[in-house]
């Protein structure tokens, strides 16, 4: 029997949602400070207004729904899924007031793309956007990469079982430290240390490549936030092509790869064993899938003679591949070049790489390396079982921080998520095709949004149909949260209708 949610359930959801909205409002103080520092008066007011709207709405929710109860599993999941919607709706307010987006739907699209670390954008005249709004675009990627709820857990919610339920709901199922709040704080410490180092590295490279120190640091901070969180926004309309710099591309590759590694692996590498990097199933799978997809991509590009030499092929092909595989979406070619020049083989390789994604408990989207590794281990196991005598007993293990025995339930869970992602990529592609886009282009854009990548072959633009924008928003949302909390949200609403 399905139980209809009670008023107490709604109050718990509303209370924690209110806290998260307040957290979002407080995070708008960073671009506000930037607006004041860069003497951008209108953007400063944009952020004052947006922050006030968040604080008022959050406070109202807390007052109306005040509770001392911890959220249970269902409530935790509902809070998380609604929090991401709320973050996109409230986070879009500064975009809308800035006047650089065509409609509020476009603003919500970009806000969801930012929070979900996708990188698809509908912004207009990006090259004349204020620094404050530009900073906000990148900051929401930094917040979203670590997790909207992780942010709230770190600073606004006390450590409890309810906190863990929300943490899991955000698509993370691994605790780095025993306490979930400590885990959240560790994630922020790692990210902030890398932010300082990465910004410095990019600023120095930028300066050496002819940028001013001010622009070097500003671009460095923005590019790091979007790169480490595998987002893909950039301060200029040409994305990474703007810099015309090999050094900049190398540094961003390092940042993208760092962002796609498991935070637990970061922890182990920092404090325990460096050997983990070569032993871990995720890094091994990641290395193999990069090699495999790059091999196919290189065949495709060389067959068509897209680039004049091997360096050009490597620089363009490998960069887009790493960008797609890590789920970042940084581009050093124009969107339509994928379609007009790359050909079907290279595009297919890139779509596969985008669909696979990076590590679990990282900032990437997609199916993820641990699941791919587990599925391949299980396949290998089954083949071995056929080959060996029937009476033989063997245990298959894999290394992920520690030695883990491969069990059927892990394989089942990995397969289920794999199927869900394949379904999501496919359904988005069908919607794209219904709007008249060719199959491969529709699949490319759909995979890019559902796996939170952000590479575009040109479909994503302010002129695309509103229904397709909504489809991609939905894909980015469900892809980032890895299904479970969204399914719980739907069940929660269904229980209102069918529950007793």
């Amino acid at each position, binding site marked *: 029997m399905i139980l209809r949610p009670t008023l107490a359930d709604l109050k718990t959801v509303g209370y924690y949602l209110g806290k998260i909205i307040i957290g979002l409002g407080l995070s708008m103080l960073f671009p506000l400070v930037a607006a004041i520092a860069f003497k951008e008066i209108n953007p400063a007011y944009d952020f004052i207004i947006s922050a006030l709207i968040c604080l008022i709405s959050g406070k109202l929710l807390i007052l109306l729904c005040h509770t001392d109860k911890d959220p249970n599993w269902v409530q935790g999941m509902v809070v998380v899924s609604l929090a991401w919607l709320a973050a996109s709706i409230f986070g879009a307010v500064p975009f809308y007031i800035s006047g650089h987006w065509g409609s509020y739907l476009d603003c919500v699209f970009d806000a969801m793309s930012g929070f979900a670390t996708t990188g698809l954008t509908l912004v207009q005249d990006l090259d*004349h956007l204020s620094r404050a709004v530009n900073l906000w675009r990148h900051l929401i990627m930094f917040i979203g990469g670590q997790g909207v709820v992780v942010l709230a857990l770190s600073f606004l919610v006390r450590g409890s079982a309810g906190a863990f339920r929300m943490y899991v709901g955000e698509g993370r199922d691994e605790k780095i430290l025993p306490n979930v709040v400590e885990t959240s704080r560790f994630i922020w410490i790692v990210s902030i240390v890398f932010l300082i180092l990465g910004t410095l590295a990019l600023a120095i490279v930028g300066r050496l490549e002819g940028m001013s120190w001010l622009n070097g640091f500003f671009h460095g901070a923005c590019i790091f936030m979007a790169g480490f969180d595998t987002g893909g926004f950039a301060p200029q309309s040409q994305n990474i092509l703007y810099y015309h710099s090999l050094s900049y591309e190398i540094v961003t590759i390092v940042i993208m790869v760092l962002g796609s590694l498991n935070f637990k692996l970061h922890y182990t590498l920092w404090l325990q064993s460096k050997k983990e990097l070569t032993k871990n199933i995720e890094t091994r799978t990641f290395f193999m899938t990069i090699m495999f997809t790059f091999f196919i991509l290189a065949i495709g590009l060389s067959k068509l003679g897209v680039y004049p030499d091997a360096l050009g092929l490597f620089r363009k092909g490998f960069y887009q591949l790493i960008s797609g595989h890590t789920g970042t979406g940084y581009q050093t070619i124009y969107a339509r070049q994928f379609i*007009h020049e790359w050909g079907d083989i290279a595009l297919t390789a890139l779509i596969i790489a985008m669909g696979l994604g990076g590590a679990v408990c990282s900032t990437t989207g997609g199916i993820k390396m641990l699941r791919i590794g587990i599925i391949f281990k299980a396949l290998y196991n089954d083949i071995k079982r056929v080959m060996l005598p029937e009476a033989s007993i063997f245990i298959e293990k894999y290394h992920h921080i520690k030695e883990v025995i491969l069990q059927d339930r892990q394989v089942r869970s990995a397969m289920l998520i794999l199927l869900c992602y394949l379904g999501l990529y496919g359904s988005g592609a069908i919607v794209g095709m219904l709007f008249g886009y060719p199959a491969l282009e529709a699949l490319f854009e759909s995979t890019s949004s559902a796996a939170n990548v952000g590479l575009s072959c040109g479909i994503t633009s302010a002129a695309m149909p509103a229904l397709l924008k909504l489809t991609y928003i939905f894909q980015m949302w469900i892809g980032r949260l890895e299904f479970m909390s969204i399914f719980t949200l739907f069940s929660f609403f269904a229980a209102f209708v069918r529950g007793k």
Partner: protein
Amino acid sequence: MRNTDYTDLKGRLHRFKSLIMTLVTGSWLLVTSVFAQQAVSSIDLIERARDFDGKEVVYQGEVIGEVMNRGGNSWVNLNDADNAIGIWMDNNFLGLISFCGNYKARGDWLEVRGIFNRACKSHGGDLDIHAISLKKIREGKVIKHRLVPEKQKLAIILSGVLLCLLIGQLLSRKLKRK
């Protein structure tokens, strides 16, 4: 005989003069037609990159971001309102640029004549234009952003609402304690 020679020479000179005139006029027409070549849009350059590859093109756009100096040459990105394309130019051209487009300025509108590369061999496969000549079409300018009064009013109203909420919360807490 001498008269005939003179007439013949005169005729030859006339023909030579006509030939020179034709050549000069032809060259002038050719040069002007090249210079008056219609600017190609960024969309055309990207969509039909193979057609334009290695050819001389004329492209117009606004200077955006900043000029990035790389030794004797520099990168300047020109945006024609659809896309920005990187222009690799000699530093001697930089004197023409006075404004780069950003939030606070409208950049100079330049016309560049140069060789278009679909996948430039010297720049790691970038789609770019190597400038041969440069012309400023329109000078950029500083953009003055005036405060929108409605924003100020809205900020004051919202601050008031938040203050009322906080006072209300404080009062209700006090009442509960009593």
